[in-house]
């Protein structure tokens, strides 16, 4: 038994594990130091947690697009970050139009719904076009080919929108009813963050119901199980795939509006980092798994928002917030090394990837 074990462990394993343990020790040590110095008050921690949850909600909705597509096509839709960008970027114009009409603050909920619909429609259209033009002809090509196509499509879309709407920042107007905060007991929660958390949660439930309870959801699950057999059972595989991209686009479009409530500026590059992090979240939760995406996104959002203050600060790193993106990517790298199946997923990376 022992001999078996020593034979199986290679030098690379040892180095990788040593690296992992080193980082873990760093994280624990940093957290202990921070908590001991008591630099941050409890209310700061609560604020950070809520910020993290709101961020996590947005990531969850984007992650859903990655997860659904991966589940069915076994490919990473690299251009999903641009699907996410296209909706809200366009919706800023709808918001401007609503302000010009005077509806923005007189009918705020209706306005928000309109803006969300615009955003979801644009994102979904882009996703469908993307699938139809770029991915469908390559469904049987070697693995590298669709991935490179996706990267190309991502840049094409990014710079097309830059060309169409300009490279400047497009502000998303504030909504009067969502400015300020609510007090729940002693906990202060910003209204925009509450809306983001709530919106993400509702959307997530709706999409989960669609995937689990409806006929089209059943078709999606069966296609992800086995395309050929599903086709034999009379399922229109192409249509199911289009629907999947559309669902991913809708949820990305709505995520985009929630994101703009939190960070009210749209620009052509806004998709890159959220997209990458949402992908991390999807992997963290177990790619191909809808509740997993939600869980992974929440964990990632929390780590990203609490992490810099919690453990980087304790390690004596100045301006720890600069490294919050690095935390997300480090998590991505290590989750893929130690548990590529993610928190809730089946073991996929080696068998099917």
């Amino acid at each position, binding site marked *: 038994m022992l001999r078996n074990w020593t034979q199986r462990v*290679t030098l*690379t394993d040892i*180095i*990788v594990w040593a*690296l992992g343990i080193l980082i873990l020790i760093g994280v624990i040590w940093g957290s202990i130091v921070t908590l001991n110095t008591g630099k941050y008050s409890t209310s700061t921690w609560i604020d950070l947690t809520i910020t993290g949850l709101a961020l996590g909600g947005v990531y969850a909705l984007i992650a859903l697009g990655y997860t659904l597509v991966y589940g069915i096509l076994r*490919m*990473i839709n*690299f251009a999903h970050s641009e699907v996410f960008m296209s909706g809200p970027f366009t919706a800023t*114009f709808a918001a*401007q139009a609503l302000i010009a009409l005077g509806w923005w603050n007189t009918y705020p909920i209706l306005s928000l719904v309109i803006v969300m619909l615009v955003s979801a429609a644009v994102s979904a259209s882009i996703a469908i076009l993307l699938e139809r*033009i*770029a991915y469908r*002809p*390559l469904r049987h*090509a*070697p*693995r*590298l*080919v669709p*991935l*490179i*196509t996706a*990267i*190309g*499509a*991502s*840049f*094409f*879309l*990014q*710079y*097309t929108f*830059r*060309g*169409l*709407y*300009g490279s400047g920042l497009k502000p998303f107007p504030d909504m009067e009813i969502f400015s300020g905060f609510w007090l729940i007991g002693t906990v202060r929660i910003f209204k925009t963050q509450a809306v983001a958390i709530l919106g993400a949660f509702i959307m997530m439930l709706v999409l989960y119901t669609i995937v689990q309870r409806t006929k089209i959801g059943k078709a999606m699950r069966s296609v992800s199980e086995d395309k050929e057999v599903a086709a034999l059972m009379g399922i229109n595989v192409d249509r199911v795939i289009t629907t999947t991209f559309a669902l991913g686009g809708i949820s990305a479009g709505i995520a985009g509006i929630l994101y703009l409530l939190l960070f009210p500026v749209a620009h052509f590059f806004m998709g*890159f980092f959220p997209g*990458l992090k949402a992908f*991390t979240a999807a*992997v963290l939760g177990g790619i191909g798994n809808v509740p997993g995406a939600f869980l992974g996104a929440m964990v990632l959002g929390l780590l990203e928002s609490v992490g810099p203050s919690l453990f980087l600060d304790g390690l004596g*790193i*100045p*301006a*720890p917030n*600069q*490294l919050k*993106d*690095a935390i997300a*990517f*480090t998590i*991505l*790298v*290590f989750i*893929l*090394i130690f548990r*590529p199946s993610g928190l809730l997923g089946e073991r996929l*990376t*080696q068998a099917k*990837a």
Partner: protein
Amino acid sequence: METNTSFSWKEFVKAGLLGGAVAVLLSLVGMVAAFSGRYIVSGVFTMGQVLFIAPILLSTYAALRRNRQLTNSNLFMAGLLSGLVGSAILALLVLIGSMVNLRAMLINASPELYGILTFGRGTGLGIVILLGLGLLIGAAAAGFLLLPDRIRHALTQAIIWVLLIGLLRDLIVTVSFRWGPLSSIVRQLFAVSGLTIIGALILFLLVGGVSYWRWGRPKRDAAESFNQQRPAARWLTIGITGLILLFLPLILGTFFSEILDNVSMYILMGLGLNIVVGFAGLLDLGYVAFFAIGAYTIGILTSPELGIATMSWWEALPFALLASFLAGFVLGLPVLKMRGDYLAIVTLGFGEIVRLLVLSDWLRPWLGGSQGIQRIAQPSIGPLVLNTQQELYYLFLIGLGLVAFIAWRLKDSRLGRSWMALREDEDVAMAMGINHVSTKLLAFATGALFSGLAGAIFAAKLTSVYPHSMNFLVSINVLSLIIIGGMGSIPGVFIGALVLIAAPDLLREFAEFRYLVYGALLVVMMLTRPEGLWPEKRRQLELHEEEPAVVPAAD
């Protein structure tokens, strides 16, 4: 009409819609307006006009070609239909634009653009002209298809060369000014922008004539004909190429030498990434990290600003190479077990981590933070300090020669064949006794080494390094050029770099649309010709393995 024609008009309406949509897109992202100042033939037509006419023409032509069996009159009808639909979409844009202010949303939907699209004749007359032009385009496409092959081929070549030479006017004219007698001839052929009418005609007839004359003669593969030459002739070819390369900066002058340096740097990186992506099939999106590590190691070790060390460039170079080589190893370790997509994302994450660390205040004392590192030493040979673009070119040239030689020898070596075996089927390769750990690690490390070398020379070129020049887009540039050139193909790297890196530098209007075009090229390339412009033979076979065998029998 449907009764006596046997063609499905739907397909041609679709082709027209597609061409029109692309033309509208090119107009609205600003490309048409940006290129409208650049004449191809002076006073006759501009690149901007080419950009909105060509999509309709090409899409019409492609649709007609798919339906070659139609009768001539039907072909003309179909062409007219498709051309009309295409131009109608452009006309619709002009019409809507003249009624509604689209500019509030689409910043390029300006009166200028409408002016270009209507040839400056106002909305009403302009739309009529545009529709007429559409009919003309359709007729031209159909007529073109009906020409004999030989003439069509000659015409295509002539048009392509006129466009190309017209676009490269600045390069040709500037370079020719350095050569007295040549410049007076060149001045006759070129105007302030683009070719003169006479120049265009001469070029058109010349290229058309030559390609008409050469039609049907056996075409030889460039590499094949090189191999078939006798040794003496082969050495002559090599010698002449070498001489041209040696004197290139003197021929080109300072400004174009800088472009040359840029291209050389990307070729250097491309050769490295070609090993990782092309040979070993590991898609690395964080390639810029190694470039950064090479450049920063030079910066840290030579710049007096940080006060860590003040070596000369040559002393620091081995450390830079070692650092990037080791970084390649370290990245390779954790990602060994991953395949395909995951690898791409993890390497992307790694590249971003490196950038974020370099940018952070935390490592500022050592890496300079967002202000980067200045006053980096430049290499010197004896008393001569290599500090002009022309001198640095020779540094690139030596590096390039060395790296290209290594890459070329590696390709068919035992290691190179192991990489290709792993790329094709990892499990089978392992079963054949290939050690996938060391093989993959060596691919990463070698690729990283080349990129580190490029970074080291880059640091010497700018004498400063900034985190902002180490972004993801560098990786995308390199990836695009090796994919356009042909994955796994060494000449492909050169071709790709010449096309992709030189183009934005030579045509400043193009620079703004660089990534838009790269992205589109990647997609189109993957859809139509995944093996690239200069394919590597094995790779070509792999990429087409799922298609029915259409390989012609060996003759």
